[in-house]
């Protein structure tokens, strides 16, 4: 595993282009576009203010930079550096900005969710969509980019509008049987829309593209409900994480629950591998100073090393006692992600913040548990294979695959606290983001491993 040099970054704004050729990152009000392979700067754009949001267009030709404070969006073209576009929302303000899937329209949400403005880069036309709902996930596009679903609120009732993205024509408009809709999400095949209610009530509704209600599911009443939802890439399963610390898997034929995954703090099944991160503080005894000799090229000595140990069952995981009289308690399954081949599901239970559960979807059972030393910040699956990258806000990045676990120290000056990470399309590399810096981490492909081995043997 190799690491690039460390580059400056602000606001955790660093994104690979959808075609995987470029890497855009922001430093204050500057947008830097680099070539992924050489890491040379391809373009450098200067915006009017500190950038708060960037997004690549789907065809990787444009990048939008949003400056919410100023109500401004600036768009840059990669092909024509001199081309520029600036959208000013004026006194209406701006809270969100995103591309439409065709890469020629920008959707700006004004302050107080008064409306969504659809700006076109092709024509002068401007469209407005009124009554967007202020919620966690109010807009969603189908994978093929044909349709957009939008959550709306009118007369104290929730509605969903489906738009055709090519001409922003309203295709369907229907009310949903929800108290306070919180999120909507298209299935990857673009034919089913999942709609879930506020956390006060456990309710998830499934609508067909033509607005028919396919099914409604509710696991229980009277308690806090859904916290997170994820579709499997095959559209076969819908995983619903809730505040009771369980993940329920619904199937796509009957829309009924197949199984529920509990997240117990004690693991007794000897079949489950529990990887426990263990700190190995460097021995500072007098006799040990010179031996073993410090590794060359590893930079300054890390303060401590960590490695995974396979814990022998039964294992009890560290749990947080949630404060129940506060809003948004730290309980329940808050993070959910399917592996790209739909074989595995990674989850995090928020009151066991140090652990990542990996479930085997083929056998519908727990496969492995990783317990980190500090709370898990983020995890993301390799887009190409079942390989999970985890970061905990420390200077290490962790990788899990069915074969085993790995803990890697990020080299560099000082402490590189990995707050977030994102995979490259090919799965060969990933960007590790800290508060002020980012670096690329190149995973060894087999050829690279081969050369490395040869080099090693040559050295020895």
């Amino acid at each position, binding site marked *: 595993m190799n690491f690039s040099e460390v580059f400056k970054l602000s606001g955790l704004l660093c994104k690979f282009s959808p075609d995987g050729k470029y890497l855009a990152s922001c430093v204050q009000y500057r947008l830097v576009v680099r070539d992924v392979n050489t890491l040379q700067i391809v373009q450098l754009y200067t915006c009017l203010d500190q950038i708060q949001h960037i997004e690549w267009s789907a065809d990787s030709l444009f990048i939008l930079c949003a400056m919410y404070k100023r109500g401004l969006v600036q768009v840059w073209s990669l092909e024509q550096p001199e081309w520029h576009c600036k959208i000013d929302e*004026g*006194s209406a303000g701006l809270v969100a900005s995103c591309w439409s899937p065709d890469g020629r329209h920008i959707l700006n949400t004004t302050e107080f969710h008064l409306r969504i403005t659809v700006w076109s880069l*092709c024509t002068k036309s401007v469209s407005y969509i009124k009554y967007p709902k202020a919620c966690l996930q109010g807009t969603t596009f189908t994978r093929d980019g044909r349709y957009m679903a939008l959550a709306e609120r009118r007369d104290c009732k929730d509605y969903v509008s489906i738009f055709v993205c090519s001409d922003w024509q309203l295709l369907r408009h229907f009310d949903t049987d929800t108290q306070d809709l919180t999120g909507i999400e298209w299935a990857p095949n673009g034919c089913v829309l999942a709609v879930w209610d506020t956390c006060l009530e456990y309710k998830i509704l499934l609508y067909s593209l033509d607005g028919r209600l396919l099914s409604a599911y509710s696991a229980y009443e009277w308690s806090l409900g859904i916290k997170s939802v994820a579709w499997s890439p095959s559209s076969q399963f819908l995983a619903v994480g809730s505040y009771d610390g369980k993940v329920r898997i619904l199937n796509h034929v009957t829309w009924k629950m197949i199984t529920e995954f509990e997240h117990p703090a004690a693991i007794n099944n000897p079949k489950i591998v529990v990887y426990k991160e263990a700190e190995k503080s460097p021995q500072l005894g007098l006799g040990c100073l010179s031996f073993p000799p410090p590794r060359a090229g590893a930079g300054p000595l890390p303060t401590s090393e960590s490695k995974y140990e396979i814990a022998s069952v039964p294992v009890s995981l560290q749990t947080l006692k949630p404060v129940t009289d506060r809003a948004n308690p730290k309980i329940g399954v808050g993070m959910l992600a399917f592996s790209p081949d739909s074989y595995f599901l990674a989850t995090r239970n928020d009151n066991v913040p140090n652990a990542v559960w990996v479930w085997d979807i083929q056998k519908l059972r727990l496969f492995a548990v990783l317990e980190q030393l500090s709370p898990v910040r983020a995890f993301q699956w390799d887009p190409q294979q079942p390989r999970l990258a985890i970061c905990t806000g420390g200077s290490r990045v962790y990788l899990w695959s069915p074969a085993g676990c790995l803990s890697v120290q990020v080299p560099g000056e000082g402490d590189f606290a990995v707050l977030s990470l994102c995979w490259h399309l090919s799965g060969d590399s990933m960007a590790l983001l800290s508060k002020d810096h980012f670096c690329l981490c190149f995973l060894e492909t087999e050829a690279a491993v081969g050369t490395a081995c040869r080099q090693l043997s040559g050295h020895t």
Partner: protein
Amino acid sequence: MGDWMTVTDPGLSSENKTLSQHTSETKMSPSSLYSQQVLCSSIPLSKNVHSFFSAFCTEDNIEQSISYLDQELTTFGFPSLYEESKGKETKRELNIIAVLNCMNELLVLQRKNLLAQENVETQNLKLGSDMDHLQSCYSKLKEQLETSRREMIGLQERDRQLQCKNRNLHQLLKNEKDEVQKLQNIIASRATQYNHDMKRKEREYNKLKERLHQLVMNKKDKKIAMDILNYVGRADGKRGSWRTGKTEARNEDEMYKILLNDYEYRQKQILMENAELKKVLQQMKKEMISLLSPQKKKPRERVDDSTGTVISDVEEDAGELSRESIWDLSCETVREQLTNSIRKQWRILKSHVEKLDNQVSKVHLEGFNDEDVISRQDHEQETEKLELEIQQCKEMIKTQQQLLQQQLATACDDDTTSLLRDCYLLEEKERLKEEWSLFKEQKKNFERERRSFTEAAIRLGLERKAFEEERASWLKQQFLNMTTFDHQNSENVKLFSAFSGSSDQDNLTVHSRQPQKKPHSTSNGSPVCMSKLTKSLPASPSTSDFCQTRSCVSEHSSVNVLNITPEDIKPNQVGGECTNQKWSVASRPGSQEGCYSGCSLTYTNSHVEKDDLP
């Protein structure tokens, strides 16, 4: 009680004594009554005996006292102290002997009484100690009773308390339930209140929003604008189209197309899955049939009805297999059939497996209980036996060593050794003689047997000759038949072999109606019986004849034989039985050739033919 008191307190008042005596008499058993009386009377007697005697007799009242004593004694049943007087007037004389006897008797009685007294006293003591023991026991038991009573009361108290507690808990539970209900109601009311408030707030908020919208948007905000260098082309390279009804319709169309595609894709997947499952089912069924059919045969042969169904089932399946295309066409038509048959097969398989399981478990049980244990016992016995043998061998070796040593020691003693040797020789001679006689007897037996064998061989030779003659005659006849009724004969064979598939008796009737068949069957009959004979006798030329005849027959029937369905494994078995029967028939060449044997022979023949086929 009274008894005890008299012993311990002899100085009690006479009233008390009599009372106690009375009570003791009523309570005592009759056996102890006598001793009691004796005891009571003897105590005062022994006390003042001396003073009584001194006062009783003086010199002047000897006569009176004697008479008094006599009276007293006679009343007690002693003989009189006086001599028996002959006359009334005569004065009675004192009989010294009688006096002495009386005294002696009295003394003896006294001694006896004393002994009895002693006994009674010891008994009394014993009984007293018994009493003590019983009393202590009684008190102990009383205590125990008391404690258990107390315990019981304690337990009852505890039970009561627990019940009380339970009642309280029930009450609490009820209260809690009520509380929960109340809280739920409160939650519900709060929720409605909250929703109501929310709605109100939202309405207000919406109003505000509307107002804000008007204010912000209608102000002709110059700032809201897009500053763009030049418009870029659409991603698909086309120009944007106007919104019309047409586009709306097109959008709808496209949406439905997408939905349709999705459904079609899913249907295809389901179809594929279905096909896979069907295939699996089919294969399962086939395997089940193949698995079950050989096992079925045995039990089914006993029950004729079921065989029929099974065979038809198999045929049906074969038919189904041939039209597999139907499977792909629709599930509905075949589904029921398939599931039914699978279910049936499954049931059979299940029962079979269960049966096997039972057997296995039985065998296991038996095996573990009997065989294993027995084998272990055997093992132990064997080891014991072997150990014994080893011991014996050791002993023998030891004795031999001793003998050798003795021999060495007594080597000089030649006479004794020669004598011993002679003794041995004599013994051996006798044994040999016995063996010799045995051998002779055996030899005699053998010779007798050999004679009988040779006779049998001669008889067999004769029989064979007769056979050969008959065969020659038959061959001749057949040859004639073949030349004259060739056509007819082949027809018969065909007819005959067509029936060979089943083992019914119909064949018998058919054959009995064909007179021409008779020689044919005989020709077949002889070779088979000869082939049987050849097993015991050296090869004879008749076997080659048999081959010839067989080939000749096979020429006729080969065509038909080839048509034999795979079902005639069973006829084969039947044929096997029949050949056994026929053996007796064929061994008597003179007897009439039964149609039965002919029929059975064709089976064997067909079987043989089949074996010859590749």
